[in-house]
């Protein structure tokens, strides 16, 4: 029985998006170094050719730190091979990808413990002593 992989297509590669995005990342890193300002690049709005997104991910690589977030589905927050450049992928409860970003920052906002959660947690802990 033939499978979808047996279809003999040899797609001609298109590399239009990878270099411009890397250039944007370069400028964002400059901004981070000079003024400590963060940048977020939304990868959802860009027309990626087949394989280009993987190429981008491969080029940026994986760095020292990776974090898994479990909130309304799993999210992966990965520092790339280039410190300060974070790859963030959000999935929903059905494990479908709902968001993909590059954050050029010291630490992505979502990694920090949030004020509302801290207060709610403190209240919960306080109940332990009642």
């Amino acid at each position, binding site marked *: 029985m033939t499978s979808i992989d047996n279809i003999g297509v040899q797609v001609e590669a298109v590399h239009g998006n990878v270099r411009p995005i890397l250039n944007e990342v370069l400028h964002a890193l400059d901004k981070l170094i000079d003024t400590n300002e963060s940048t977020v690049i*939304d990868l959802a*709005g860009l027309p990626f050719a087949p394989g280009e997104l993987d190429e981008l991910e491969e080029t940026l690589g994986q760095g020292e730190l990776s974090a898994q977030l479990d909130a309304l589905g799993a999210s992966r927050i990965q520092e790339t091979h280039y410190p300060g450049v974070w790859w963030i992928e959000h999935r929903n409860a059905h494990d479908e990808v*709902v968001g993909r970003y590059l954050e050029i920052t010291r630490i992505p906002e979502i990694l920090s413990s949030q004020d509302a959660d801290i207060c709610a947690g403190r209240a919960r802990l306080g109940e332990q002593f009642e």
Partner: protein
Amino acid sequence: MKNTPTVGEILQAKGVSRRGFLKYCATTASLLALPPAMIPRIAEAIESARRPSVIWLSFQECTGCTESLTRSAAPTVEGLIFDAISLDYHHTLQAASGDQAEAARHAAMEENEGGYLVLVDGSIPMGNPGFSTIAGISNYDMLMETVAGAAAVVSIGTCAAFGGIPGANPNPTGAVSVGDLVKDKPIINVPGCPPIPMVMTAVLTQFLTFGQLPEVDKYGRPLAFFGQTIHDRCYRRPFYEQGKFANTFDDEGAKAGWCLYKLGCKGPTTYNACATVKWNQGTSFPIESGHPCLGCSEPDFWDKGGFYEPLSTGKFGSGEKVAGAAAAGVALGVAAAAAGRRHQAKFTKEG
């Protein structure tokens, strides 16, 4: 309007953490094609928004739009129903039917007078009300009755927005779009056959987040998703520019993923977000899968020449008409020559 809880309160009650909420806001910003810098504003807006009531009316449709919406990733329609909006009426998705269902619809309309959203998929037959009825009520009557107290109407899919396939030649049921009938309420058209799920939910989310409807183009389509043509965002555009085209569906050009213009792609004249947002959670879209764009988000796309006829094909009229023109030319030529020869004869005689 009933004092419904805010979305922020609902999420908190469901135990959604602040991180989860931020994630939701980030994906919403992506959905609405807003820059990431808007995320804090979205967070603020969503937290204080109240759950609007939504009534969904299905008329002459194939249910593809509902199917498409239930495949939507973010937010999921179940998520939408329970967390964000209050879907008070939907033929296909609701458990109730018959009188009970109609009673629920009327209750929702009364309770939320002036503030509810009406979503419509399918065209409305005007040829004979009997062509399409629900609980014995004609589509036309149900539409006009329901939109009377609505805040706005959203036409989901090309059938509701422009007439779609029922409205295509010869239009046996006299199908018309929502916009042809409703003149006194704001209408947002979200066309596509079906529309991209994310686009549908984005419009609803925008209403939820900002309490407003998005900016639209001359066909009433949200500019955020229908402001660019497929051609202008297609990843195969470099091949178009280089002159690399597929000539048949299985030739080397097609296998290499070259431009599908010669196979009838309507990308240059079609406004939709397929090339960037794509389908099935960003898996691919028709052109990426090797099939030319049909132009399904454009009015009358069924009647705009064949799907496999290239855009620049001329329509020269019948061969007979051209032959007729040729015959006319011969006649005129003979007449002109006859006059000329008479003139020449006069000349030579005198000369």
